[in-house]
């Protein structure tokens, strides 16, 4: 079998929760060698679940599993100066260091660019923070929710007027920031022969504020001083373009171009009102949305979401069912593409996790090894890569600076 695309890249990952682990996971999906340093009580997301049966257990977090496949875990108290020789060796070993510490915390751990570059002249350092490592909010404490709502995404695009702006039902800012970090970090690695050591400051908030909200809104806002807010309707200026209820859930109802509108009419059995002159373009339909949405809904409420999707798609109309998470996971399409991957885990048993985000015909990709137990690879990594003797490793453990796997995890 061909070797993985990134197999020559060595990654040292520190931090936890979502952003830095997702960055590491993407690199690991395509063969990069990931050593993850966890604090002695583990990555915070080990405590978040979801847990089988809702029973908290530090080795059974589903989110930790999904974000940490193909990695090795070293449980090490990086704040303790007795860990310094091992940390220095790992810094020297790595091609890239990915972390999501705030600047003050990174400095306390010795993870500043100047110090890392002195230790490893070709190092690429990727710092992922909620707001960014420079600027007035650099020292602010922030979680995904805080970063997300600093982007104006909720205010502009998500929620009803007068009601709170909404997140996307996931750690959207952390995922976006982690993914952005993987892309730019890989670009930095690609250019390393020319550029040498590089430091990357990734702000989860800025990545979205710029590329999503900024891309569509900032030019007009700067020029004309006007801007829009959320409406709760998919596309207020064209119709139909929103989520509507149906017999067994919801559909994304979209029929903007003339051909799509005619296709929708055929799918709905050519009702007379759809032929009216006033409904022949998407803008006048939107101006009359109070009239047309209830009429379309009358039809959708009589049919199932997949039936509606199938009928409309066959007529060339881009209507889709709003898949539940179960429907998305069980769809034959994903099975045909072998997207979901089953892996064996010592505590969770067989886990069906998400596969690689894209397919390479010429080389493998995706999770092949389960997320590690906390400290599962402490001995192996610290004695091989970090060059400690077995006795030195045992001493670190007895001093409470490092640890291997504890039987049964922590409840």
């Amino acid at each position, binding site marked *: 079998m061909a070797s993985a695309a990134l197999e020559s890249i060595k990654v040292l990952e520190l931090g936890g929760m979502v952003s830095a682990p997702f960055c590491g996971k993407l690199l690991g999906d395509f063969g990069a060698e990931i050593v993850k340093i966890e604090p002695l009580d583990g990555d915070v997301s080990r405590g978040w679940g979801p847990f089988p049966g*809702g029973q908290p257990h530090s080795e059974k977090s589903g989110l930790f599993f999904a974000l940490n496949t193909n990695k090795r875990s070293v449980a090490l108290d990086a704040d303790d100066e007795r860990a310094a020789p091992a940390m220095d060796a790992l810094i020297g070993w790595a091609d890239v260091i990915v972390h999501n510490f705030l600047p003050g915390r990174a400095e306390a751990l010795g993870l500043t660019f100047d110090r890392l570059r002195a230790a490893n002249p070709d190092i690429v350092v990727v710092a992922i923070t909620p707001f960014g490592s420079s600027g007035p909010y650099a020292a602010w404490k922030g979680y995904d929710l805080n970063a997300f709502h600093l982007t104006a995404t909720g205010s502009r695009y998500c929620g009803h007027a007068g009601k709170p702006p909404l997140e996307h039902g996931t750690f959207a800012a952390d995922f976006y920031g982690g993914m952005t970090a993987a892309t730019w970090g890989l670009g930095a690695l690609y250019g390393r022969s020319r550029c040498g050591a590089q430091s990357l400051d990734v702000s989860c908030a800025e990545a979205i504020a710029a590329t999503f909200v900024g891309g569509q809104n900032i030019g007009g806002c700067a020029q004309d001083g006007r801007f829009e807010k959320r409406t709760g309707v998919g596309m207020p200026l064209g119709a139909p373009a929103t989520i509507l209820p149906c017999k067994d859930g919801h559909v994304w109802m979209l029929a903007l171009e003339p051909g799509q509108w005619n296709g929708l009419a055929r799918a709905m059995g050519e009702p007379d009102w759809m032929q009216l002159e006033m409904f022949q373009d998407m803008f006048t339909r939107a101006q009359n949305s109070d009239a047309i949405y209830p009429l379309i809904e009358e039809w959708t409420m009589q049919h199932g979401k997949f039936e509606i999707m199938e009928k409309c798609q066959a007529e060339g109309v881009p209507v889709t069912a709003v898949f539940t998470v179960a429907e998305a996971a069980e769809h034959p399409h994903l099975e045909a593409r072998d997207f979901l991957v089953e892996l064996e885990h010592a505590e969770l048993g067989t886990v069906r996790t998400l596969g690689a985000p894209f397919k390479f015909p010429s080389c493998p990709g995706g999770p092949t090894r389960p997320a590690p137990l906390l400290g599962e690879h402490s001995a192996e990594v610290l004695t091989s890569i970090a060059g400690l003797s077995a006795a030195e490793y045992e001493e670190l453990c007895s001093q409470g600076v490092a640890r291997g796997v504890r039987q049964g995890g922590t409840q």
Partner: protein
Amino acid sequence: MSDAATTAPLAGVRVANFGWVWAGPVAGQTLAFMGADVVKIESRTRIDLTRTLPPFGGGEPGPDRSLSNHACWAGNGSITLNLKKPEAIELALQLVAECDVVIENFGPGVMTNMGLGYDVLRKTRPDLVMFSMPAAGLYGPLRDVRTYGLSLTSITGLDSLVGYRGGPPVPVENAFSDPYNGIMGAFAVLTALFHRDRTGEGQHIDYSQAEAVMQMVAPAYMDYALNGRVAGPMGNAHPLGAAAPHGVFPCKGDDRWISIAVLTDDEWSALVGAMEGPSWATEGKYDTTAGRVAAADELHASLAEWTAGFDDRELAERLQSAGVAAAPVLNVGDLLEDPHYRARNTFIEVRHPLGFDETIYGKYVKTTAPTPDTRPGPVMGQDNERVFKDLLGIAGEHFDNLVKDEIIY
């Protein structure tokens, strides 16, 4: 600028970008930010929809004046080729022969039908990296599914999680997945370039936008995988229900809000301290995460009463000094004024070749490597002479004829 052309991380990487609308152009833009030479192939026979979107520079409509287009396409160059003509296909093949990467975001089979499928392209450039990013990938039962960027997320489960708790799904009013997939698309391209450099092999990347978006569904997906539970709209709650308070709370003024997320008992104590210990917060039931999560609705209602009396920015400062993760909820207008984004040059004013100034986003990841200056999205065909004459060596008279015959068009 000229420095970065030879010293930036991706200097020397050349990309032909057949991408249109948003996701494909962002994939090219991302590589261009890091120094790749990216040209978009487009045509006046079918002007890209996003070039026609208002508002326009100076308020004057025109395909080279759409402000949103200039932000989303910044970094891409542009050549014009009428790909309905066989001579134009020949020129496209000549260009691809000089490129490391081809990007496209049409539906599956569209490039092949134009005579630009991977099998054809690899003959002219054997180690080519071709990046295709259809909605659901290049094969499988949903291969030909029709979606828009803003509805693509519906087939991933993500849309089913967005909305107020207990209510119906609320549509996200623009295509969050487009720039997400554009940037992750550049990751896919770079990964394939690593493989090419090690092995000499190119390949055709099968990038399903839906599968890339599903990565973001991981929290709810894993609850389904482990417990068979199917989540609904989550509001602003912690996606795994592992924390409270966790939400957006009203502040003084019209549509002003603050986000507050309390993940630990220490942070809760800090919040209680900042509130000066109101009795509702100190009666014991909120002392643990489990207690706070169990009574989250009541807790959120009490907290909202308190936040409503404050200015959002003042309250964020106050809570931050106490050690609580809190930040103002910004609207679009706030982005330009926000001191943090100003300090980071998130948004920059640039001069468009047609003579007007406009605001776009700049290099949103701050790096120490040299990178090119950010230029606005291209004027149609601005790189025609550079590409056709300088790169492909087409003589002046021949070039003029190709323009006259509307092949370069």
